[in-house]
């Protein structure tokens, strides 16, 4: 059986429909999609406004780690058919999708929600991508909370 895996670091806009089509096969009956976007107004914690985010990636390692995440998803949820993991980089403005995770399967109760959730959490933990936030208060690099360790 054909099990498509699509991994991409791109400067182009993320076409949600097009990626979904690429991981939909005749046996697919369910897709869990997660997309994150630039938040222009943050209300939780320290309330602030964001003008834009500048994303950068260590391309070759980022793609290798995204492939590793897809492999981990297939090990944990063997019923997952198609996987999409996309990160957009460059200068991204509020309301713009920055990241996309899709997991498809024959049925919804076979782990697709959990698989997509795992995918985005893992991407934030181990894929070498960074973002600088620019707003009315100046610019600063955002640092993740996870410490990457050897073997991850």
């Amino acid at each position, binding site marked *: 059986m054909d099990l498509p895996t699509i991994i991409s670091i791109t400067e182009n806009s993320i076409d949600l429909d097009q990626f979904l089509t690429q991981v939909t096969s005749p046996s697919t009956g369910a897709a869990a999609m997660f997309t*994150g976007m630039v938040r222009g107004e943050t209300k939780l914690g320290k309330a602030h406004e964001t003008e834009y985010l500048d*994303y*950068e*990636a*260590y391309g*070759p*390692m*980022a793609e*290798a780690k995204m492939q590793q995440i897809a492999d981990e998803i297939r090990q944990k949820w063997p019923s997952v058919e198609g996987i999409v993991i996309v*990160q957009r980089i460059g200068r991204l403005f509020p309301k713009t999708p*920055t*990241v996309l995770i899709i997991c498809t399967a024959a049925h919804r109760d076979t782990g697709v929600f959990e698989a997509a959730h795992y995918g*985005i959490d893992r*991407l*934030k*933990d*181990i*894929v*070498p*991508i*960074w*973002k*600088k936030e620019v707003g009315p208060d100046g610019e600063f*690099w*955002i*640092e*993740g*909370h*996870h*410490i*990457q*360790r*050897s*073997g*991850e």
Partner: protein
Amino acid sequence: MNKIKVYLFATLRDYAGLKTIDMEIPNNTTIAGLKSLLVKTYPKLAPVHDSMMAAINREYASDEQILPLGAEIALFPPVSGG
């Protein structure tokens, strides 16, 4: 001597003012040794000396790992993609 290439990202690149550094270092230098060497050469990196992550040939590496000959090294702050 070991000829390596070091890639810097995010805050580290801003502090050092460089994207890549070609270096010749003694054989059997560890990641910890490399970090100290870099902070000596680029004192502006001192504030992030203890928090920088490292990768050897595109895999995460710990401080005690030895740099292989001709390695591709990357140093960066904790990742923040998504």
